């Protein structure tokens, strides 16, 4: 297939599907919400306007501060999450990458391990 008459390449043309899909999603959702707003009765009350907290009464404000130690654990979690993201695809293709891949992954894991050791020595892993 050659370049279209409008000068748009085949490569970009394939993105057209994405564009149509996005437009369809917006139009469809907007249409449904609009129809629903016409049909449904609107009787707002105090109870109904409360923040939905899985049926529990909301306590305090939405802007409450969270503990800084959650943040550190989240950070450490991200480190290992990303590690897993790299290791799983590598593991399925281990034979293909051979010794080179093994050494590379060894270096990668070693550097991450050093980070964990550092965090451990700094007492980050202890729940204070």
């Amino acid at each position, binding site marked *: 297939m050659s370049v279209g008459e409008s000068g748009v390449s085949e490569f*970009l043309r394939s993105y057209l599907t994405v564009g149509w899909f996005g437009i369809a999603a917006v139009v469809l959702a907007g249409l449904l919400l609009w129809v629903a707003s016409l049909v449904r009765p609107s009787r707002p009350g105090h109870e109904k306007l409360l923040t939905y907290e899985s049926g529990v009464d909301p306590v305090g404000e939405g802007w409450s501060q969270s503990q800084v130690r959650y943040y550190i654990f989240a950070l450490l979690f991200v480190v290992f999450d990303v590690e897993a993201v790299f290791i799983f695809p590598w593991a399925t293709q281990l034979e*293909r990458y051979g010794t080179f891949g093994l050494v590379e992954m060894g270096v990668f894991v070693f550097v991450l391990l050093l980070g964990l050791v550092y965090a451990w*020595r700094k007492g980050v892993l202890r729940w204070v």
Partner: protein
Amino acid sequence: MDIAGDFLPPTIEWFALSPYIALVAGALILLLGSLTPQWPRGWYGLVSATSAGVAGVLSVLQFANLADELPRTLVKGALAHDRFGLLALIAICVAVVFTSMTTVDADTSDSLEHFALLLTAALGAAIMVTANDLVVSFLGIETLSLSLYVLAASDRRRSASQEAGLKYFILGGFASAFLLYGIALVYGTTGQTSISGIGSTLAGEVSVPRNDAMLLAGVALLLVGFGFKVSLVPFHSWTPDVYHGAPTHVTGFMASLGKVAAIVALVRLFVVAFPTRADDWRPAVFALAVLTLLVGSVLAIVQRDVKRMLAYSSISHAGFMMVGLEAAGRIGSSSASDGVSSALVYVVLYSVLAVGSFAAVSVVSQHASDVTSTSEGQSTTSLDAFNGVAKTNPVFALGFTVLLLAQAGVPLTSGFVAKFGVIRAAVSTESYVLAVLAMVSAVIAAYLYLRIMVSMWLSVPASGEATSALAPKLSLPLRVTLVSAVAITLVLGVLPTWLLDVSDSLALFAR
């Protein structure tokens, strides 16, 4: 299905990669130090200075080797091995060695993290200046930026430092988003991320260009993203606050390392990947250069604080580097390569000046904070703190004056060589408007450096108490740093022959 044979591991040229390995090794050794009790004072700095020094020597060797080798790419085209990148790498290593020595003396911290972050920042910068792939370049940018965010906020006792770190982080993250979006659009048009590959793809296309709107939008976003990192004028607003708030030795580090890495990556990207679109991006670079030169110089002279003055002056210096890039964008001209080498030489020489100047500022501000004790929370880097410094410390004041004169571009200093290079490149590519504006801006900025000098040499201290000599406070590493910075400035200013000899080979990019 035999895909097992398809994968060819990249050839690893250990010697060519050794500077990066030296930097990583230094950082890892420092982090291993967390397993041991606190090392004796100064040892952390010694490790970081040594590993950066080793990396620097290795880059010098490779720079010399490239005299009779052709530039090439490493690790399957991920990194470029050319003199353009290696000279920047040498400047980075010098900046790390200097900063390690000045940091040892700063009482803010003697922590291993501080020095490990210096090395990771240097690694990010080293990857940026040699990256031959947009994704690798972005990796370097993030490594550098994340280290600098933490370093900017490293003085935990001063809220200004915290504020600087947060501001830098938010605006830097914003800039990274621009860069990523630009990379995505360029990848979308050309189908690849290799910088030299993009260049050859765009050069190889026949008469009807591909979707130019998307490519140009990508180029524009890349320019905006790098504009943030380099602090070109519409995107400069973070610079004065961050430079002012960060600890002074970190400010010098940011000014030198950040500028070298971002300018070199920007020039490599635009000259190697988009020379065929030079007519489109050159006007934008022209406008940025004009704005940066004038706004940087004019705002610098109305500041009352020396750190903010030097921050605005670093913006103005970025404008000069853009003059070089603009000249490099005149692809048809035979002198376009002069633009490339002059921008590189400018930023390399500026990096030494920046580290030296901010080291000198840190000496004075340290002294001022000792003298005024904790009377009121006024800034210790205001211009008044420099009043009469020459009376008590003539040698120190002389050294600082040389660095300031060099920043102003006075002959017989390296700053003159730098400014002469970019303006000559602009003139020889017939970009006369920019050349004239650059000279005007240099004159305006000279007033700022003169103000500091007048304050040091002619003004009397406001109160009698500041007359005590600060010479005993200068530790040996700090003395060595200041003397070396001044020596480099003078030697390259008086004998620039070596720089001029190699400058032709600087514009030979690995492709």
